[in-house]
């Protein structure tokens, strides 16, 4: 569903993403961990077609992103870290506007259903977005993702700034989407959520995939320790084996 093959992107002399190969199938939740500047957002931008790779390719449901980014975006749902909306529009109006841009017109009742489905209270949905909290805006973002009915979902730091309850709500929605067959790529710092929600975890360091583990493999592993070890740039760890597995 979401694939990259030897994807590389340079900015001047620096490789922000270097030879990245990923494959995320339907129903998978892939958490991409990495420090600031590791290349997580660049990877997302490449998958969205906002950037053109220097080499390799990114594919969404079989379509090459670089050759037709518009078509690729229509197959993806994207929730940015900060879901910024138009403050003078209500939640419903924002959802209507953005989903119309994607060529999907829905009735008011459908839009309201989507918002409520994403966890937003009905009375909030008809209020202007200038009164919304971060969590509420994110719910509109989720509703938008649901509205696209896309088979792939890209998330950029989705739980950053959310309180535990909102974070938990978000997880439940995520799992529901995966159960419906959506392939999810989640770029995040949140190790706890990554372990709780994802089916696979990748660790990105200097644009390269330093580690790629299934949830099964990480069952009894101290994820934080593993993460820090990968970031320490030890060549022995570059094949993605844990200390206990050596």
């Amino acid at each position, binding site marked *: 569903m979401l694939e990259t093959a030897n994807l590389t992107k340079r900015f001047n002399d620096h490789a922000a993403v270097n030879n990245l190969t990923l494959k995320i199938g339907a129903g998978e939740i892939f958490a991409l961990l990495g420090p600031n500047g590791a290349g997580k957002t660049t990877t997302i931008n490449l998958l969205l077609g906002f950037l053109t790779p220097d080499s390799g390719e990114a594919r969404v449901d079989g379509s090459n992103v670089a050759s037709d980014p518009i078509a690729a975006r229509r197959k993806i749902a994207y929730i*940015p870290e900060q879901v910024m*909306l138009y403050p003078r529009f209500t939640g419903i109006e924002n959802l209507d506007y953005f989903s119309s*841009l994607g060529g999907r*017109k829905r009735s008011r009742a459908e839009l309201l259903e989507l918002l409520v489905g994403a966890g937003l209270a009905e009375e909030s949905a008809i209020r202007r977005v200038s009164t919304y909290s971060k969590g509420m805006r994110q719910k509109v973002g989720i509703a938008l993702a649901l509205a*696209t009915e896309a088979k792939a979902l890209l998330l950029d730091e989705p739980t950053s700034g959310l309180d535990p309850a909102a974070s938990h709500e978000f997880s439940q929605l995520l799992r529901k989407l995966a159960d419906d067959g959506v392939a999810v790529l989640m770029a995040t710092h949140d190790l706890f959520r990554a372990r709780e929600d994802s089916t696979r975890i990748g660790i990105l360091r200097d644009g390269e995939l330093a580690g790629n583990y299934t949830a099964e493999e990480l069952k009894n592993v101290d994820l934080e320790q593993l993460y820090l070890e990968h970031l320490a740039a030890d060549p022995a760890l570059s094949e993605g084996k844990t200390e206990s597995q050596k």
Partner: protein
Amino acid sequence: MSTHIFLLELRMMARERAAWLLLALFAGALSYGYWNGHQLAKRNSEAAETALQGSEELQRKIREHLSSPGKAIPVGGRGGIAMVGFLAQLPPAPLPVLATGQSDLVPASETVSLMRLTTPVSTRSEIENPSHLLAGRFDLAFVLIWLYPLFLLAFLYDLMAGDRETGTLRLALSQGISPAGWLCRRTLARAFPVVALALAATLLAGSDGYGTRLGAALAVILLYGLFWATLAVAINAVSNSAAGAATSLGAAWVAIVLVAPTLLNLAAESLYPTPSRPELVAASRQASGEAEKLGDQLLDSFYKEHPELAPPDKRADYVAMKLTEQEEVARSVAPVLEKFDKQLLRQQQTVGRWRFVSPAIVAHEALTDIAGTGYWRHRAFRGQVKAFKHAISDFYTPKAHRREPLVLADVDKMPQFTFQEEPKSDWLARVSTGLGGMLAFSAVIGCWALLSLRPRRLGAAIG
């Protein structure tokens, strides 16, 4: 779908109080400009009406006098036709409310009398405070050429930069719409109310008929608006902030509306310096003085060349003398006058050739041409007045020389001034060429905008 997005964009705009205030201000400016233009048009029309009434009264008196048996009017002498002034009146412009143009500056009438065909006096026009002429008129053309772009830019300066700053751009474009497509829909929605008001005002100003002129005026407003909208799109595509876009667009307005026309005028005046009226006056006077000195000699040689015009008693007559002198002056001053006129024409042709550097100049020239208050209609009037002077001279001079008075049978043959409007094809060609140029300019900017909005170029800014 596009209509739905268009309506949503309009709704977004309608939620801003500033938008309503701006639209109200623009509507107010248009109304005031329309009213001012209407007042001036009324004044000019009343002046023309009064002048024509006077002329008709004169004709009626002449006819009445000559209708009595045995009555005749001498050409020379006391009460002669030689000192009577015949009116050459430029009829009111077709669409005067649309643009004042030159109608408050250049006289719309001239009184032609046989004895003063070459006297270098300027013709009369309405009393205008020169300070007001300097400040310019608050007419519809002023609102449409100067203020219309400002109001459009007030709505369009932040098409994208603000969204880029806040992050809504990323979310919008991730829905699978091309940046150019998204921007065009937004531009269309935001420009719509301003353009609609401008078109409505133009329609009102052109409501006196003249279908082609009205259609042309609407095309000017539409294409002028298109130019500014395209420029706003292009600037937004490359600006990093709303303030940056506003500054660039403001600078563009200053360059296109304020500076370019003055530079073009300066260039035209430098390439073809305006000839000196004082020198023309002095040259006319010199020619007149020399002709006066030749006196009888001139008259004698004139009668030698035109024996058919010699009076029965061959005596010198004051009027005949003066007419002969006048002809001599006209002959010697003709090259100076021609040079004068040619230089002025070259200046205006330079403006016409280079008007494409600024859509404001194109729009101004087009609107004044369409309204009938522009340079070319007044130039046509001056040319026809010159022909009228020849007609007056051709009709009355032989009578003056032969001392034949005017009789009733002559009344219907007396030269009358009737202004011939320029053929539609002439002014339409000028306007169409201007509009074509403006469209081409917009297309170039549009291409630049499209290139700037390519995913490869835009992506780095969004990412």
